[in-house]
């Protein structure tokens, strides 16, 4: 049994943001208190997440049985290598966005509860990363979603109302389908605990019922993670809210869906995973290509990044679709790098838009003379995202392509390389339009860059660069996370104890 101290550390990434958010809601008219409480919660979450990660790395997965209702009867929280890694990065990114938001989010959004909602979202995401129960996962999805739609609508502009309506509708349908799958799985196996279900499925014969339930899971989680052909809601929404919200959506919220897909297919359906892997492979390949092609034709910087984000989801799913331990490791490394980099990139886009006066590529230009530093940051981010050596995207893609070739999947390897090229072309074109060409007459270039508000973006970017320049520890961490994910029997033993 996990010692009580570590049980609290395990629950802290959920409890602290919830507490910070609750205090923030109670003091909703006192913005200073809300900000202070949530900042403390952010720092505390990061510390707890680092501690948790260190402990999991040293002595294996930690388990907490809520209220000491032993698995499979109660709600179980589990931190294995993958969960701990994602929670740690989400906490780092959460702190970065918190600091950014404290300098940039406008007063009206603060008064309407930006910081409490933001922390509710972080609590939901961490809950989804840490839970060991399929129904509990549904609850965390909904926590993330309700906080997310609140944040999405905060500015109340017309595009935001439109985006929120579509986002709510499609995601509600998605989570309801997830709930249908959960209910059917409960009916078929009699359990909701992930470890318990996977153990029970070992003795079940392959059947159409299980296949249908599994595909419902894959469908709803692919929708949540914005995979082809269910991704249209993402670029329709992510460019409308304030930059901090786009950034946290891009960095964390999309990874919740991708993580859940990994967890459900590899762990819950471990004896039957073969049934879905091929579907996921083709979904991943099409996601890669459509994301890259979509990015090419965007005229709005954040929409362009949204399509690049969709392509990134393709890489993560590719790791699952190829279906070997190596490819899973590559996908996990890509996800880890992507969390940090995509958040930094969206924040950076906000800074660029602030000095350019617009997110429209057509109205930007000539920033190289005035903002050489931004141009360098943007360029580095492009290199890292599109997978050029020596930065992070390259190592993850090299790993994935190698795994694809080893598995004989030439098509997957080709799609991974082509998608990287498309994203590079799209972003390179954007860089040339924003920084290189002459400023169009309509450009509003009066705003100046405020250096203190740039600091969190730079810090996150440095973290992403460091992951690329010194990849060995991260490659090792990702390989171990993939190992922990694939070690279904070890997971079952940890969660269920000696009782099965």
């Amino acid at each position, binding site marked *: 049994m996990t010692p009580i101290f570590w049980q609290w550390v395990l629950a802290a990434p959920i409890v602290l943001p919830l507490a910070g958010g609750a205090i923030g809601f109670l003091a909703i008219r006192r913005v200073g208190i809300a900000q202070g409480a949530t900042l403390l919660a952010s720092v505390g979450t990061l510390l707890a997440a680092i501690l948790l990660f260190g402990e999991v790395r040293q002595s294996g997965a930690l388990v907490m049985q809520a209220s000491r209702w032993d698995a499979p009867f109660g709600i179980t929280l589990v931190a294995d290598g993958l969960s701990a890694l994602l929670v740690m990065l989400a906490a780092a990114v959460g702190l970065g966005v918190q600091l950014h938001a404290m300098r940039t989010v406008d007063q009206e959004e603060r008064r309407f509860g930006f910081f409490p909602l933001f922390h509710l979202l972080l609590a939901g995401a961490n809950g989804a990363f840490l839970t060991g129960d399929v129904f509990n996962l549904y609850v965390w999805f909904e926590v993330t979603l309700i906080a997310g739609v609140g944040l999405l609508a905060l500015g109340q502009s017309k595009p935001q109302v439109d985006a929120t309506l579509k986002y709510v509708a499609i995601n509600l349908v998605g989570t309801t389908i997830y709930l249908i799958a959960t209910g059917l799985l409960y*009916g078929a196996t009699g359990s909701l605990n992930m470890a318990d279900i996977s153990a029970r499925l070992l003795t079940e014969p392959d059947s159409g019922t299980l296949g249908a339930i599994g595909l419902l899971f894959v469908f709803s989680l692919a929708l949540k993670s914005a995979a082809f052909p269910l991704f249209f809601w993402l670029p329709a929404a992510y460019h409308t809210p304030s930059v901090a919200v786009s950034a946290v959506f891009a960095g964390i919220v999309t990874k919740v869906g991708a993580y859940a897909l990994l967890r459900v297919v590899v762990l819950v359906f471990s004896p039957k995973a073969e049934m879905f892997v091929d579907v996921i492979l083709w979904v991943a390949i099409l996601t890669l290509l459509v994301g890259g092609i979509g990015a090419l034709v965007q005229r709005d910087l954040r929409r362009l990044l949204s399509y690049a984000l969709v392509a990134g989801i393709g890489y993560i799913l590719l790791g699952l679709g190829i279906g070997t331990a190596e490819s899973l490791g590559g996908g996990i490394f890509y996800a880890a790098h992507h969390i940090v980099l995509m958040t930094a990139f969206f924040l950076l886009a906000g800074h660029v838009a602030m000095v350019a006066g617009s997110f429209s590529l057509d109205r930007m230009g000539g920033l190289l003379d005035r903002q050489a530093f931004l141009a360098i940051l943007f360029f580095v981010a492009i290199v890292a995202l599109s997978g050029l050596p020596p930065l992070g995207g390259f190592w993850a893609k090299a790993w994935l392509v190698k795994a694809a070739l080893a598995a004989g999947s030439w098509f997957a390897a080709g799609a991974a390389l082509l998608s990287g090229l498309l994203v590079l072309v799209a972003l390179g074109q954007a860089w040339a339009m924003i920084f290189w060409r002459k400023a169009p007459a309509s450009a509003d270039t009066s705003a100046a860059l405020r250096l203190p508000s740039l600091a969190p973006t730079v810090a996150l970017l440095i973290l992403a660069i460091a992951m690329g320049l010194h990849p060995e520890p991260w490659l090792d961490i990702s390989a171990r996370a993939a190992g922990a994910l694939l070690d279904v029997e070890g997971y079952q033993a940890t969660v269920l104890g000696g009782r099965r």
Partner: protein
Amino acid sequence: METLLALLVGLLVAVATFLILSPSIFRLLLGIGVLGNAVNLMIFTGGRLTPVTPPIIHEGETALIAPYANPLPQALILTAIVIGFAFFAYALMTAVRASRDFGHLDARRLDAAERPELVSAEPADIESFRARKEMHR
């Protein structure tokens, strides 16, 4: 009884699918509401319907004595009802706001987030946010 309920769930899901595919946002939201209820019934049925005693531990006993009704589906459904209710309220309010802002609830004509003149002048800081508000209200 299970067969009957299964058929009812199927009917509700069919109705919900029909409504969700409608271009009217209002019907879409009704469809999501119906779908939520269908799922609740489905979980209830999935937990098995048994004509046995309620799951209560009587005085002097330390554990439930079989046969007893499955208490878990109720907990699941209660959770799902609460969540579904909150979301339905939120979605309805968003729809009310949208119908005020746009004057209609036709999904085919909801494109405010797709129009560059509305979108690209998005807030990056406080000043531009204020300017944008004056522009769009």
